[in-house]
């Protein structure tokens, strides 16, 4: 499984791809990209214990969200599903990184 940081970066890249392909972009997507950049910077600066169940759950959710968003790039009908998974992953990662 990729690191949480790598999955955050992958998810950002995929969501940006979707944002740039849809005009106007869904507001939820724009907001999520903003939140993910916050998480990315926080993650880079924070010492995290990656051996906890909480970390693994967040990293797995983020990795799933990144995979689903990649599928949504080629099938825009799946964007809503990708946004839903991203929201769940953001919530879990924010808890670990204590981002409000």
């Amino acid at each position, binding site marked *: 499984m990729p690191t949480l940081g*790598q999955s955050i970066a992958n998810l950002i890249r995929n969501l940006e791809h979707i944002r740039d392909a849809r005009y*106007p972009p869904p507001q939820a997507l*724009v907001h999520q990209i*903003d939140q993910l950049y916050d998480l990315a910077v926080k993650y*880079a600066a924070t010492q995290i214990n990656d051996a906890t169940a909480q970390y693994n759950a967040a990293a797995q959710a983020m990795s799933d969200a990144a995979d689903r968003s990649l599928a949504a790039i080629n099938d825009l009908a799946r964007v809503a599903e990708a946004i839903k998974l991203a929201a769940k992953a953001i919530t879990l990662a924010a808890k670990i990184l204590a981002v409000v």
Partner: protein
Amino acid sequence: MNPAIRLAAGAALLLSGCGLSPVQKDQVAAFASATAQVGAATAAQFTQLRQDVVEMNADELALGDPRQLNPYTFRFDEPLGAEPITRRVLAVNALQAYGEALDKLAGADQSAGIRQSATDLVSSFNAAAAADLTSAQQASAADLVASLGGFFVEYQKKRAVAKIVRSYACPVDQLAQLLERDFLNFGTDDDARLRPYQPSPVLAGCPFHSPRGDRAVGVLYGYESVAGRLKNAAANVLSGNAPFDKRQRATAALLRATRNLDKGQAVGEGAGKALRALRKANAGLVQSVGDDQLRVEDIKAYAAAAKQLLASLKVLANR
């Protein structure tokens, strides 16, 4: 001829014969000047990247959601604050001083210039060490200036080159790796960013402790995250029904963010290549002073990478 003069001339010939050969001198000079230039260019780049971050954050404050961004607590230089950038500038100053000291020793310079550059070298590394390296390395270099004699014949210069290269091999390798991490682009190779310091193979015994710790926001990582956020905010404004002046500002911000993302990509590629080549050439230099054979190819590759980096930084500065 007076026997004393004959003896002195013979001794001078013997000593100069044991100095660096013209090819070795050229190679040390090539390594040294490339290091000094990479150091100077990188220091300037850090300052410029921080300035770009301040401007991008200002744009984001203007475009962002006023409910989310409080102008009174907003940090314009986040995440490239003054302290982390100062730390890195000290590190590249040390690399620059290393290059300059070797350059003086490989060149025709005599005692005054050499002593001055050796003093600069020790003080630059001490300053960088306080920020980035273990204090053990300061001690190994402390007697360097004192040990350099007043008059440099070629033989002494060669010994001084060997001493400097040996004393600074580990700190140079470590600083170069820390800087290499700073130039990793956002989203590329998270493992490499988090991996503990690994010395170059010939420097396997290098001790390492960084007060930075294992986690830190790399300079390009931070830079590109700010640019990415700004692009997102600008795209959001432009896709809505914002008034003309806000759309105008968003257009300028989108252009700035896009350019800076391109810039980050180019700087990351160029600097990463130059710093990897620096570490390889530095390790080669350490081996060279050990077995008296300079590895020309490593130094040539490093000088070429440094030249390429400087050229790309020059192009980016004019954009």
